[in-house]
């Protein structure tokens, strides 16, 4: 008697429908070989937020009794396959306060599989994915993160490619025929999608990952207080007031110590402090108050709290002064302003390297206009995304000056 436990780790809202399709697809595919299964979202994630990592689960088993062992709880203790549909989550998952930074492979059983959609090289990914105390397999499907929104879905075949890959990873539960049959019967299924699933079955790339490989950062975690240690009346202390940055100048707010945004952003702003006109708009319009005010009146996006929304780029009146760049090309959360202050030339080189990287700056972060997704899918694999420089929206869009 056996069970296959899968978790789908995804970017909240942007990939909510994708994850649900995958979870249901797993159960309905396994059903074709007579298995029993359940699909559910992790209740603690709801209500989901744009960008905040979330999880769905699909569990199939030979018998109903075995299935019951995995029911009536928010999250399984271990999973056979971790499916991650946004490779920036390889840096870890932080879904809510006190959750800490949880490695993407935390629940993956020894010799289990982490299946990811990514264009990165294995070694680049393993710079981000935390070391595990057991060997496991890393499988990749060559694709960009599939983002859309709640109402309009981007039919880029990601869900079927994942199902096709799973047929390769867990053939005893998900035969390729079962997957194909289930896809045809889905309301979002089609024959072309069956072909995509088969291609993924063939083209999946897998590599063993040893104990010694991976990011050796010790992810932060928190000890939750006992009931008698908590102040009564459901009361917690407020956040203290912030302080000037240096010598009484600038300002750095105090921030919530128990919840950081490292794993909320797929992209982060890169700032050109030389061309900044100190107009304050990025600072005042940032919904997450992530800009620290520097002593010289410029603004440094604090990577503790930037969630990668892109509003700063939208409102900044200066061409390429703020550019959103994919999180995968950064190795740390260090302050850009400190780097710039220390060595302006080195910073300029580093910065231009980032903001000129066509693949890292292309953006497909949900709906912008009707027909957008179809247009994106026409362009090749690696540039999927709408040319973002054209007509950057925002108060000062029309007089963007270079």
């Amino acid at each position: 008697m056996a069970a296959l436990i899968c978790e789908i780790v995804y970017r909240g809202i942007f990939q909510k429908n994708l994850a649900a399709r995958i979870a249901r697809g797993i159960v309905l595919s396994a059903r074709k070989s007579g298995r029993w299964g359940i699909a559910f979202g992790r209740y603690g994630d709801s209500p989901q937020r744009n960008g905040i990592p979330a999880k769905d689960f699909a569990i199939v088993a030979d018998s109903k009794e075995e299935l019951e062992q995995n029911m009536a709880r928010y999250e399984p203790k271990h999973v056979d396959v971790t499916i991650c549909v946004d490779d920036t989550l390889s840096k870890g998952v932080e879904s809510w306060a006190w959750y800490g930074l949880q490695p993407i492979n935390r629940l993956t059983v020894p010799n289990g599989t982490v299946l990811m959609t990514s264009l990165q090289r294995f070694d680049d990914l393993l710079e981000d994915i935390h070391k595990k105390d057991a060997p496991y397999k890393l499988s990749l499907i060559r694709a960009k993160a599939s983002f859309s929104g709640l109402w309009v879905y981007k039919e880029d075949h990601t869900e079927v490619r994942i199902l096709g890959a799973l047929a390769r990873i867990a053939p005893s539960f998900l035969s390729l025929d079962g997957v194909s049959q289930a896809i045809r019967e889905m309301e979002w299924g089609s024959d072309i999608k069956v072909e995509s699933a088969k291609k993924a079955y063939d083209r999946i790339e897998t590599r063993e990952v040893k104990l010694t490989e991976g990011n050796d950062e010790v992810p932060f975690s928190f000890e939750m207080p006992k009931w008698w240690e908590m102040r009564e009346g459901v009361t917690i202390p407020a956040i203290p007031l912030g302080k000037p940055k240096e010598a009484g100048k600038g300002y750095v707010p105090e921030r919530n110590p128990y919840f950081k945004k490292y794993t909320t952003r797929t992209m982060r702003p890169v700032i050109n402090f030389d061309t900044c006109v100190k107009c304050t708009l990025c600072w005042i319009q940032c919904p997450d108050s992530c800009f620290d005010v520097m002593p010289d009146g410029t603004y440094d996006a604090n990577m503790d709290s930037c969630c990668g929304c892109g509003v700063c780029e939208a409102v900044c009146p200066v061409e390429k002064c703020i550019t959103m760049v994919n999180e995968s090309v950064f190795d740390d959360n260090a302050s850009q302003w400190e780097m710039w202050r220390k060595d302006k030339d080195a910073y300029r080189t580093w910065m231009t390297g980032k903001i000129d990287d066509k693949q890292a700056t292309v953006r497909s972060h949900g709906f912008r206009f009707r027909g957008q997704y179809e247009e994106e899918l026409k362009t090749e694999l690696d540039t999927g995304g709408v040319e973002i420089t054209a007509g950057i929206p925002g108060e000062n869009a029309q007089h963007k000056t270079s």
Partner: protein
Amino acid sequence: MAETTTFTNATQILEPFRGVKKVTIEEYFTSGHRTCQGCESALVMKLMVKASGPRTIVLGSTGCMYVANTTYYTTPWVVPWMHTQLGSSGSAALGTAAGLKALMKKGKMKSEPINVIAFCGDGGGADMGLGAISATLTHKEYNSLILLYDNESYANTDIQLSGSTPYGANTTFSPPGTVKRLIHTRWKKNTAGMLAAGHTECRYVATVCPSYAVEMMNKVRRALSIGGPTFIHSLDPCPKGWDYDPMLSHELGELAIETGIFPLYEVEDGQVKYYGKTKAIVEGRARKPVREYLLKQGRFAHFLEEDLHYFQKKVDEMWEQWEIPAVVPFRRLDATKAALETK
């Protein structure tokens, strides 16, 4: 405990910020909340207490700005903040203000003007809590500001339509189906206009949008300084519920105003004063077509031309036929006469 003499029930006098460079530098609503990328409602919270300053108590009814902000037993609030029930923002403002007043009047607490702000979402304020807000706006002896952040749905429960959801929008309670394309065919409630018209002793009602941060903060400061119960209605784009790339949040706030869908005005002691881009519209600048705003949002992706046409017609009516354009839906006399004649 007899009444003391030091208590005057005065408010803090908060002068308007003369431009964005003069804005308070401190943050009283800081990072570490769990809102969506590009959530303009979070921006409203930040600007609201940046405008009010530290001597402020904030009450927040259930909604995104409750659940997303106080992220599972943590907080982004620097000023004292307390949760209240979905429909209780009016009562929270009234009770907090009354408690402070009683204690200060009886010498049980140091007398000082403390800002009391209660915020609510469109569901909490314009639907469930409307009765309590209306009651609070009649108690002119208690100083408080009720701020309604309107993301046009019950967003915290994954987007259901509310009384403030625009005509035809896609929500989980109004999915476009093969048989019924538009389930939600109600027109958005005119909350600020209704409250301004219905409460003669409420000295200040205003509408704001966080895309215009300085004006918004100055309306909050005006409301807190003028005294008595005041009301502000903010329109804040919601990337999750409206389904758009979060980067567009700022622009969509502007477009909502430039298309004339959401008017920016304040009503002070009965005087209606339009401001910002709305003032330009009233003074004759052409409104942008509503389609420019609607078709940038996935929640209207199922609209047909007839829906866009209907939406545009209704917005045109607001500006061309209302006695006080976009504020109170009473048809102008000549329009009524004309209508009568054609019968």
